[in-house]
Structure formats: structure tokens, C-alpha cells
């Protein structure tokens, strides 16, 4: 495929990752995986990705948020669309008191809850990538 989109998943649950990875593989995406925030950030900085699928609760707490914060500060990384996949809606709201349940981490992001139905997952992924590309074409 000439225009194969590259995705990165950062999630510390290998079983869950296999579940979404095989759906994304099946849809023709090239998928990389990082099982912790550190290697995740390294991957983001060393390679171009069309989309990041990001888990929030990893390791000792909301380490996914650290990644989002780092991305927000980086002019290149903050253009990458992010699909936040989380198991805990309540805690997201708790972490951002006073903010709506869906926090805006970067320019283009969306939030879905685990587990996510294949149809919804693929819809969100392609929509986010399209939105990011349209934005790039406009500003770039």
C-alpha cells in the first residue's frame, strides 16, 4: 500500500493492545506498540506517526497525561491527532476538576472508553487522521 498510515499505541496492558492492534492491522494500518510512557515518547520522537492511541492510566497513575503534556509543549508532536482510550471516565473528570469529561490534550483528540467496538474504533481513527490532514493542508 502506497499510503499506509502509521499508528502508535501506548498502553501498558499487552492483552488489550493485542485486541485493538489486530483490528487496526486488519484494516490495513501499520501499527507500532509501546508498553510504557518512556518508550512511547521515544517512538514519537524518532518516527512519524499519523495517529497516537493513548491509554491514560499506566504504571503508577495517570502517566498517559504526562505524555499528552509533553506532546502539547512540542510544536511537532502537538500536531499528531490522539485517540485517548481509557477505562475510567470518572477519574478523567477527577483529574481535571471543573473541566468537561473530555479534556483537550492536543489540537485534535477524542476519547473513547475501553473496550471499544471495532466499527467505532476504525471510524474514530480515520476521522481523526482526516481532520489532522485537513488542518495541515490549511495551515501548512
Amino acid at each position: 500500500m502506497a499510503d499506509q498510515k502509521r499508528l502508535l499505541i501506548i498502553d501498558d496492558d499487552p492483552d488489550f493492545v493485542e485486541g485493538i492492534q489486530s483490528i487496526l492491522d486488519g484494516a490495513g494500518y501499520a501499527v507500532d506498540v509501546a508498553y510504557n510512557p518512556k518508550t512511547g515518547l521515544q517512538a514519537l520522537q524518532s518516527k512519524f506517526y499519523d495517529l497516537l492511541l493513548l491509554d491514560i492510566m499506566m504504571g503508577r497513575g495517570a502517566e498517559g497525561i504526562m505524555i499528552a503534556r509533553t506532546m502539547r509543549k512540542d510544536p511537532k508532536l502537538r500536531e499528531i491527532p490522539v485517540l485517548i482510550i481509557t477505562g475510567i471516565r470518572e477519574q478523567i473528570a477527577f483529574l481535571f476538576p471543573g473541566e468537561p469529561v473530555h479534556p483537550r490534550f492536543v489540537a485534535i483528540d477524542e476519547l473513547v472508553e475501553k473496550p471499544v467496538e471495532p466499527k467505532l474504533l476504525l471510524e474514530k481513527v480515520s476521522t481523526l487522521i482526516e481532520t489532522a490532514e485537513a488542518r495541515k493542508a490549511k495551515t501548512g
Partner: protein
Amino acid sequence: MEMNPKEKIIIIDDEEVVLDSCTQILQGFNYDISTAPNGSQGLKLVDEIKPDLVFIDLKMPGIPGMDVLEQIHNQDNTIVTIVITGYATVDSAVEAMKKGAYDFLPKPFTPDEFRLITKRGLERRKLVVETITLRREKELLRENFAAIVSHELKSPLSAIQQNLFALSGELAGKLSESQNARLERMKIRIDDLIKLINSWLRVYSVDISKVKDSFSAIQVLTLITKAIESVEPHAIRKDIRLITRIDEQLPPIEGDELSLVEALVNIIGNAVKYSYPESQVTIDSVEKDGMIEIAVSDKGVGIPEDELPNVLSDFYRGKSDDSDESSHGIGLTISRKIIEAHNGTIFVTSKPTVGTTITIRIPILKEVV
């Protein structure tokens, strides 16, 4: 080894003889006793040593005893205070107790009386402190419960479900009809579990009374229509007709739409669940005595009379006629809490094998004058 810390008592009285004799009476007990001859020194002592129990003479020169009492409670209302009244002045004793004193001790008193009231005061203090600790622990538990349940239970279930989702896509066309059906059942069962955990989180870690912050005017018809939309697929599966009889021009109620719809979905969903197939569930709504009444009736298995009081309490689980239906017995608890947060009431009437009616009443919106 940790020793029980000595219980700290302060006696504030302008008569030296009272201070001395009180100190003597309590000698031999494991108390740490301090005394002060007036209010201002007494307050300073309270601030310094953080006592468990304070005796305050009501009649003292300088700061009046009643003010000392108030200032102590303003500083720390877990400190137990007992006032000493000079003569049989019941009025001032009553006033002191209104201001938070635990008890009063009329002069003159015997050593036994003093020892007894001291013991009771300290027991009271212990209870107060214990209550506060328990309340704090309960809050902490509630907060942690959300985190533990989400992470330890929901994560593995999500991983399983995600793989079932992936597998059913990858195996499409390769499985026999019955294998496919089993895979679908598995997804449904896992989905039920995840929903159950979400309900628990809703009951135990979300403070439902907070919906009061987002009250607005709501049309009853909208609520019922939205709730029916969500229950209808289940009703169709069991061939149950949903019949609504809603008075036209019902006045709006004041509430939170999302949670009220949730409450109604639970109630109507329950009615469908416990109905005999091919029967009907009716939803009536009328205005009555300043309240909107919504009654949901099924023609189903009903609830035995001795179980009726339990229906709305936590974890009640009825017997569904269709054992395939999952019933968690928590939906009605959530509904009850939501209705109560709306200053409403909910009650159940039922006859076994005939059917059940759940009626909720919610106050109508008061006209803003």
C-alpha cells in the same frame, strides 16, 4: 510499644478550692489534668494542649464562661465541654447545652458525681473522634473503590472483550452458526459485567446528590420518551408492548434530565425484564397534589409480599421469569437515590403472578415569582 496517650482534661474555674479538689478527685486515674483560674488563661491552655475534655465554670470574672465555651467550640468542635453551674440555674445550663456543651454539673457536687461525669465526658469524646475517623475512612474507601474497581476489575474485562471483538471480526465466515452464537453470548455476558461494574461505581463512588447542581426545567414527556427509546429494543425482543398514558399539558418538573432518564430506564427496563412475554407494560403520568406522578406497571411475575420492603434496597435481586435475563438488583437502588435527590418518592406495590407497579413522585417546578 505504643501506650495509650493520657486523656487530657482542663478545668477552668475562678475558685482555687474547686480546682484543687477536682484535681484531687481525679488523682489515681490516668488523666493529664491542667487548670486555669479564668477564661483567657483557660483558652490559652486549650490552644496549647488540645484537650479531650474541658470543664468550664459559667460564673467567672473576666471572659464569661458562656463565651469561653463558644470560643472553644469555634476552635475545635470535637472537644467535649461540660459546664459547672454555680447554683441551680437550669436556664444557663440549658443555654450552654444549646451552645454545644455536652452536659452540666451543678455545684455543689460529690466526688462520685464528678468522677462519673468525667468518665462519661471522655467516653463521649472517644465516640466523637471515632466517628470522625470512620467518616474519613469511609470517604477514602469510597474514593479508592472507584480506582480499584476500575483498574482491577474493568481492565481485564476490557482486554477480554477487546479480543472477542477482534476475534469475531477475524473469524467471520469461518465459524459454524452455533460457534458464532456462543461468541456473541460471550460478548453479551462480558458487556453485562462491565455495565454492572459501572453501576457499582455509580452507587458507591459518585455522589448522586450532586445532580442538584445541574437542575433545570424538564418536560415529563421528554423524559418518558427518551427512557422508552432506550428500553424499546428489549421490549421488542420479548414481544412486550409499551403503552403510555400521559396527561397532556403536564407542568414541568425541576431536575437533572440525564439522571432522571437513567432512573426511568431502570424502572421501565425492570418492568420489561420481569414481565411475561407477549404482555404489556404501561406508563401513566398525571399531576397530583403539586407532584408529577409516573407509574410503571407490568403484568409479570410480581414480588412476594415479604420481599417488597427489600426491593429498593441495595443488591435486591428478583427472580426473572426468563433466566437468561441478567438482573443486577442495583438498578432500582440507583433509581431510588436519583429520585430522592430530586426530593421525590418512589414506592412499589405488587401481587405475585399478577404484576408490579412502581410509582415515582417528583415535585413540579415552582413558578418563579
